[in-house]
């Protein structure tokens, strides 16, 4: 089971980051989540969602989703563009099992852009 992304349903509210950050730190922040809203290209309205697991990154780009092994990311200039590379040292997603809860990002997303499969 892992978190999957429907990137075009995402509206960029960052509630997933907030929920995941709370799961790890019991505080409200946007710096430590296993799921990241990529929103660094504001003028282009280019936005995606990335989930880090133990072994790979689930990358939800608007033009399509992909799964990339973490080893591929580290090759300099490896494909994926700027949207594919963050959160390589953050805690990997544990589906909120360490808190004995269902995945919070999936529960909190108002637009069902995240699901479990």
């Amino acid at each position, binding site marked *: 089971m892992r978190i999957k992304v429907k990137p075009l349903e995402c*509206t*960029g*509210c960052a*509630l997933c980051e907030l*929920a995941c950050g709370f799961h790890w730190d019991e505080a409200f922040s946007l710096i430590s989540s296993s799921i990241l809203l990529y929103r*660094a290209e504001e*003028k*282009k309205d280019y936005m995606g969602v990335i989930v880090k697991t133990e072994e790979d990154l689930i990358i939800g780009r608007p033009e399509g989703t992909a799964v990339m092994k973490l080893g591929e990311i580290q090759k300099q200039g490896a494909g994926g563009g700027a949207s594919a590379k963050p959160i390589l040292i953050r805690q990997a997603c544990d589906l909120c099992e360490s808190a004995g809860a269902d995945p919070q990002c999936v529960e909190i997303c108002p637009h069902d852009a995240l699901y479990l499969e």
Partner: protein
Amino acid sequence: MDTMYYGDTLIVDLPSGKTEEVDFGPEMLTDKGPGLAAGLALYSEYEADDPLVMGSGLLTGTTAPASSLGFVLGKSPLTGKPAVSPLSLFSGAEMKLSGFSMIVVRGDSPGPVYLWLHDGVADILDATELWGRDTWGTTDAVRAEMGEHLVQVVSIGPAGEAASKLASYSINYWGSGDTAALGARMGEKKLKAVALRGLGMLDAEGPSDCYSGGKELLAKSPAWNGFNKVNGGLGVGDIDGWLKPLVHRYRSCFACPAACNTFVKYNEKPSVLESTGVEEPGMLVTGATSAAWLLSGGWKAEQACRAMEAMARTGVDLIRGARELARSPLDDSGGIDGAVGGLSGSEQAGWPGAGASPESLFGPWAPPLAAEEEWLLANQVGYVLGICPIYLLASGVDTAGLFGLCPAAAGIELDSSRVAGMFS
């Protein structure tokens, strides 16, 4: 004790270029109230210095639905009375995360400056190189200087620099809903921009209860895309349908289930999803009212959006500007920049189909989705709690539920009548 406010009040003295931090104090929350209520108390305290007061609401930055709101409060050059304008998108949350409970900007700077507020550090930086740039250029330059694209930049353009009564501050590249011309006050103060970024964590009195309470409210709160849900009272019909051929995606403010903000593309096809070489493909329409005016004036959608872009760049109030532009539909050969440049500021802020906006602390950023008394209360509650009043009005979200989060957030009890009392 950790509360939703974890920093001091920052006093920025522009004439001397110095900053000072004073204790926000738990009694501010209990005696005056959070959010805008505290802002009004600080405004009164520093009124002789003609201050601009900035801050966020009690629940800003949490899982409460639409908890994105911050504010700027100052004397409007239009009325000579205190008026408040919103900080939305991600700027309200970043205001809170920047590490100060409230910010009071006193006096005028001798030369152009901008504030850089980051993780409890306040810097007043020289803005000579920024002065004269439009808000897009200013935001790009500040983000490049700080080395981070996620810095939130509240800035003025040439209109604000000239202290035009049409001036409004922009939030990054987009219209802010500043209908009180507080952008002109920034220009008078030679305050070109306020840049915000915080990498901190917000504690709460009862973190788990605050988190789960907010999450439960979210689950009961409606979600939607586009402006039509907030169109009611504007009386202009189908804004979303009018924009549809240009629509790329819908965007939410921080923590908001409603993705009203509509990104339109006209410099490349709206269906293009990848990040291409077109650096500025369109713009984010952030308010229904300005779009409504241009629609009601018979403007074509693309020209309307280009006009809104030009106004956002120049730092002109999109609502008043759109109202004036609506008097003359642009023909196909139209010069948008000329039309925007020729705005006289003759129009009052207001809503098409609903008359003039009530002259009050709150401008017409939030549409008239309810009777005046209810509209006023939604604004009061919104700015105190940090919840978007547009969402409060359009969604029918349970304000009792929001008040129910206050003890877990900051150990205080609030209700509607107590909030209303903060403004009397």
